[in-house]
């Protein structure tokens, strides 16, 4: 799953970079909502050095460096308007390292500065349910994840995009983001053992995503299996195995074997 995680983080980072370049003035599905959608209100670096330091974070490849550079940035430019975006990069770096506590801390700092940032909200909402094992505050965290997903949906609805972005592209990106919000709802429901609700949310996530994702079909398959719908589970897991990536394919194939010896076609 780490490789899959890393791919997702890379994708989110790319989106953030584009968002910056555009929030910033051109086109981006994840363009920041509210005040950042208009160039006149884009967060401004006050000095070249501040922007240099920020770009070092934004273009960093090594998650450890990104985390360190963000800390340096925070200490040197504590009043920077770019702080919220820097924390987002730090959150993604922690996600890449599978460091949940770091992700939660960076994500929540980002949200304090940019409360409606859909990218942060979706990352947190999807990460929290995966990292509850052994935590005494798991019930609180699940409530927070659910709230983040709700806020993300509201944020997506309020997003205004640049005129240069074709409507079809926006609708596809929007559906992708909505799908991620439903995935988070599904995960929260699974953890709360609300299985029919989980199935319904994962169905919306997997089938509503214009760019089908193996992980979403895998979760749907697991939810079907949990309510005893083996046919549904097999179909969803086969789709997950088809979509991959490799690590997920192995997991899906393993689950298919567990489901009464059924082998993927």
């Amino acid at each position, binding site marked *: 799953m780490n490789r899959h995680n890393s791919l997702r983080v890379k994708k989110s980072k790319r989106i953030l970079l584009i968002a910056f370049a555009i929030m910033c*003035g051109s086109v981006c599905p994840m363009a920041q909502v509210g005040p950042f959608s208009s160039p006149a209100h884009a967060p*401004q670096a006050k000095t070249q050095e501040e*922007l240099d330091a920020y770009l070092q974070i934004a273009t960093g490849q090594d998650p450890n460096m990104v985390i360190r550079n963000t800390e340096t940035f925070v200490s040197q430019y504590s009043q920077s308007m770019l702080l919220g975006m820097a924390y987002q990069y730090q959150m993604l770096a922690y996600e890449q390292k599978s460091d949940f506590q770091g992700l939660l801390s960076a994500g929540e700092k980002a949200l304090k500065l940019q409360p409606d940032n859909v990218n942060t909200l979706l990352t947190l909402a999807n990460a929290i349910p995966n990292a509850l094992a052994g935590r005494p505050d798991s019930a609180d965290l699940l409530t927070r994840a659910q709230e983040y997903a709700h806020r993300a949906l509201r944020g997506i609805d309020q997003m*205004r*995009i*640049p005129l240069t*972005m074709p409507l079809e592209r926006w609708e596809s990106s929007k559906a992708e983001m909505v799908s991620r919000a439903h995935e988070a709802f599904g995960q929260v429901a699974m953890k709360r053992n609300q299985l029919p609700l989980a199935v319904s949310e994962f169905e919306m996530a997997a089938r509503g995503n214009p760019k089908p994702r193996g992980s979403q079909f895998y979760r749907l398959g697991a939810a079907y299996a949990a309510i005893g719908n083996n046919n549904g589970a097999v179909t969803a897991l086969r789709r997950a195995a088809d979509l991959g990536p490799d690590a997920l394919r192995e997991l899906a194939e393993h689950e298919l074997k567990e489901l009464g010896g059924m082998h993927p076609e």
Partner: protein
Amino acid sequence: MAKQKLQGLRMSIAFRSFRFLSFCLIVLQTLTESSRIWAQTVGPALQSNSPVSADDQKRTLGELMRQMRWVEAAPIAQALVQTYPDDPNWHYLLGVARWRLEDPIAAIQALREAENRGMDTPPLHKALGLAYYSINQFILFEMQMDKASKLAPLDFEPIYSLGRYRESILNDYSGALKFFERATLLQPDHSKSVYYKGHCQEMLDMWPEALGTFQSAIVLVEKNRERFSLPYQGMARLLLETKTAQALVFARKAVELEPNLDSNHSTLARIYELQGKLPEAEQQLQIAVRLSPNKPGNHYVLSKLYRSLGRTEDAQAQLQTFQKLKATYDESPQ
């Protein structure tokens, strides 16, 4: 109501993409620069342990940049940066290539490397300023343009860029007007500076002055044989209510010069509508909608026109599209 419509039309012109003009400016700048780049790259060889191969690279880079083959130029510039890491010239050229490849962040990083190595030239500051502009870093953009202007006080380009920023992003028309006045003093035959000076006058309700300025811009466009339609469109906007027949001539000329500019068609449509030529107005609005399908305003005007023609279903469809787009798109300056 008519004044509001006119105001809306003027605002939409005001919001026209500065990106395109920035692009034009950098093209102009890079073209001008390419001869200097060429001189640099074929000039005295820099210190190197493998002078033959490095000299070959320099020659090739110069040739590629002259031919504007940026995809091939960028890796060679990168290689030269690695060979001569302390030489700001190669960082600068790498920045230019990356900018032309529409990678503003990488361009900024390379141009900053050049600046940190002591380069302090107007082309560097202009390129860096425009790269900052493209990622909406306006404070830094202004700083760079100020530096360029101080180093080359007779160069109109930084002044023009600062004017465009004030006009299109801040909508500070009186502030922008001062910059365009300075730009036109420095470069009297730059039709765009003259046009935008007129546009600011128009937005400040200085219509008689604006008319004269647009007229001057038209003289320049014709003298320079440019395909720049906005002065004609400006004349059409100012005359459409009082001298509709004259406005029509200008609007048609604007369409002829830049047929892919939706606002030229919507201006022409407005004049046809005033003349009661509704089918012609419809045709022009349909072209405007086709050229800029995401602009809510064009659909709204078309909806009103259909209503006047009694085509209620078409009017309703356009109104729905307008409402959908209005709820989706951010129409602030981009």
